[in-house]
C-alpha cells in the first residue's frame, strides 16, 4: 500500500493511494482536497453579516434565527450531498469494476459495473472553458454491436487529477484488464 501526493486540475493537493489485495484485485483511491476552514468561515460570516444588516433595517429578530437555521441546514446539505471526500476505484479481475464516492458526512455512493460490460478504460481529453483537461473513463460495451460503445462513464470527476496521476491509475487498471484477454476462454 502506498500513498503519493499529486495535484488536481485546479492546483489543489490530492493524494493517490494504491492497494493490491491479490493478483487480480486492486484498489485505487484518490483523496480530494479537504474543506478549508477559511472558506467555511468566510461564507458563514458573509451570511451572518447580511442577516445582521437586514435585522438593522427591519427590526425583526426572526431574521437572525432564520440566518442561523439557513447556515446550519446549508452546511449539512453541502456535507451530505456536495462535498466528496474520496473517490475510489476497485478493479476485481473477472468480476467487475466498482466506483465509490464517499462524501464528507460519511455517505457512500457506489456503482458496480460487471466485467462483461466493460470494453476498456481510457484517458480522454475534454475542453472545459479555456482549458484542456484529461479524465479517465470506462467505455461500456454495446450489446448489439461488438465494436460499438454504448456509454462512457467518467471517473474521478470531483477530484480531477492531472495527467501524471491518471497515467498511474490507467497502468494499474490495464494490468488487470489484460488478464482477461490472456485467460483461456471457458467453453
Amino acid at each position: 500500500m502506498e500513498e503519493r501526493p499529486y495535484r488536481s486540475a485546479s492546483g489543489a493537493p490530492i493524494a493517490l493511494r494504491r492497494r493490491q489485495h491479490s493478483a487480480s484485485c486492486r484498489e485505487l483511491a484518490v483523496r480530494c482536497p479537504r474543506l478549508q476552514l477559511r472558506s467555511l468561515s468566510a461564507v458563514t460570516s458573509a451570511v451572518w453579516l447580511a442577516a445582521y444588516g437586514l435585522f438593522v433595517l427591519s427590526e425583526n429578530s426572526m431574521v437572525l434565527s432564520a440566518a442561523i437555521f439557513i447556515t446550519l441546514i446549508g452546511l449539512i446539505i453541502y456535507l451530505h450531498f456536495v462535498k466528496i471526500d474520496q473517490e475510489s476505484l476497485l478493479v476485481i479481475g473477472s468480476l467487475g469494476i466498482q466506483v465509490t464516492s464517499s462524501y464528507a458526512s460519511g455517505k457512500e455512493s457506489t456503482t458496480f459495473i460487471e466485467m462483461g460490460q466493460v470494453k476498456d478504460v481510457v484517458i480522454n481529453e475534454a475542453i472545459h472553458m479555456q482549458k484542456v483537461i484529461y479524465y479517465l473513463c470506462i467505455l461500456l460495451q454495446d450489446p448489439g454491436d461488438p465494436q460499438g460503445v454504448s456509454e462512457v462513464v467518467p471517473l474521478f470527476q470531483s477530484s480531477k487529477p492531472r495527467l501524471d496521476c491518471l497515467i498511474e491509475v490507467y497502468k494499474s487498471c490495464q494490468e488487470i484488464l489484460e488478464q482477461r484477454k490472456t485467460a483461456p476462454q471457458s467453453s
Partner: protein
Amino acid sequence: MVLKVFFPSCCSSAESGILIGRWILEQNSAVILAVVHFPFIPVQVKQYLSEVQRVTKVSVSVLGSWSNSKQEKEESLSEFLEDLGTIFSHEPWIQISKEGDSKFWSCSTLQKHSNNPKEEEIILVYYDQRKVMLSHLHPPLDTATSTDRRADDASKLSAIFDTVAKSKILFMTDRYDDGPIKLTHWQSDGVEASIIVELMKQASVPACMLLTFLLSLISGICRSRVLKFWPLSFLWSKLSTCEQLGHRLQHLQVISSNKKAQTQTQLMRKANVFVSLLIDVALGILLMSWLYRKNRIGHLADTLIPVADHVAEELQDLLQWLMGAPAGLKMNRALDQVLGRFFLYHIHLWISYIHLMSPFIEMILWYVGLSACLGLTVALCILSDIIALLTFHIYCFYVYGARLYCLKIYGLSSLWRLFRGKKWNVLRQRVDSCSYDLDQLFIGTLLFTILLFLLPTTALYYLVFTLLRLLVVIVQGLIHLLVDLIDSLPLYSIILRLCRSYRLAAGVKFRVLEQQDGKPLRLLMQINPLSYGSVVQTYRLPTYSCYPKDSWSSLCKKLFLGELIYPWKHKGEKQD
C-alpha cells in the same frame, strides 16, 4: 481463469459436510446454496437433488466439500473428502476448509480432466442469503426494454439472484425435519413465517369475493341505460369527479381480482394501488372529520353566497370600468354600451339564480361533503367542480367574447383580401386573385372600415375575459395536478425502499475483507439499493389525464385568432 465461489455467510459456522449449489459454467462461478451434513447416503442425496431440480428448474448439484474442524486438519478426513469427489463427480471439485475460529479459509480445487496444470486463483465472495433471496434486481431502463437477450448474455448478477430466489423450496427443510438429509442454510434454524401475514392471506379470499360482487353491482348500475341519456351523459363527461370515481373503481377492480400476481411488477402495482387507496380514504376521512367538527361546513356554506356576490360585484365594477374609458383608451360608445349592458344583465341573472339557490346550499354542501369519505382526491375533484360551477358566468362571457372576436377577425381578414383584390378559394385551399364589381368593392370597403374601427372595443372585452378564464383554468389545473400526484405516487414502493431497502436492488457492491497471503481473496457482496428517483419512476401508477396538448406557440396562435381553447384534455375524450 479465476474461479468465483459465492458462499452464504450463514453457513460459516456449519458442521463439516458437502456443498450443494449451482455451477455456472460460462462465468466459472459456483453459487453455494446449502451444506449437507454427515451422515448421508449418496444415493439419497442425488435423489433429493434431482427432486429439487425438477421443482425449481435450477440445476442444483453437489459442488464440493466443506470441513470445519476445531483442531488441526486431520489427514484421514481430508482423504475422505477427496474420495467423496469421486462419488459425486463434478468438475471442478471445490474443497473449502476452516480451522478453529480462523477467518481465513483455505480453498482448493481438484481438476481431474483439465489440461491446465496451473493453480487457478480463487475468489471467495460472501453473500447474505436471505437478503439476496428476497431482493429483486432492477436492470437499467435501457436494457430492460430489449427482450431478445439470450440466457448467457444475461448479466452475471441476475443469474446469481435468480438461482437463490428460485431455490425457495430448498430452504423449506429445517433441522427439525426427520428426513434423511440434514441441511444448513439461512432458514435451517426454523422456517420463518408471520401470523399476521398468514391470517391476512386467509381473510383476503372472502374479502376479494365480496368486493368483486359489490363492484359488479356498481358497474352494472353505472352502465345502465338510464344514465346514458343525453343531458346526463354530457354532465358526467364534464365533471371531473366522475372521472376520478371511475379511475378509483378501476383500481378497486385491480385489487379485488382473484388471480395471484405473476410477476414482481404486478405484485408491486397491486400493493401500490392498495396503499394509495388506503391513504387516500384515510386522508379523506380526516378531512371530513375536520370539516364536520364545529360545524365548519355550515360556516363554509354561509360564506359561499357572499363570496359569489363579491365576485359578481367585482365583475360589475370591471364592466363599468370597460364601459367608461379603460386605461385611457377611447372606446366606441355605442358598441361599448351594448356589450356592457348585455354582460351586466347576464350577471344580474346569475346573481338572482344564486340567491334563489341560497336556502338549499347548506344542505347540498352538507351531503356533498359526506362524499369526502371516498377519498381526498374525490374531495379535491369536487372542489374543482364547485369552482367550475361558480365561475360558469366567466366561462360564458369568455365564449361570447371569443366568438364575437373570432367573427370579427375572420370578417376582417376576408375583407382585407377583397380590399387587395384577392379571394380565398375553398376548393383549392389557397388565395386566388378575383375581379370584383364596383359595388362589391364599395360595400366591402365600407364594411371593412366599420369592422376595423370597432376592433379595439371587441378586442379589449375579449382580452379581459380571456385573462379571467385563464386564471380560473390555472386554479383548476393546480388542483388537478395535486390529484394526479396523489393518484400516481407509489407509496408502498417508497416505504419499502425506506424500511427494507434490500428488496429493491439496483445492483451490488463489494467490500474487500481482511486478506492473508496464500489464502483466496475474500470479498463481501452487499446489495446496492435503488435510488428514490428510480423507485418513483419505475413504479409510477398510470393516471387518466394528460398534460396540455397544445404547445405554447399553437396556444398563442389560437388566442390571437379567437378560437376557443380547452387546455386540459383527458385521455379517451374525442378530439373536436
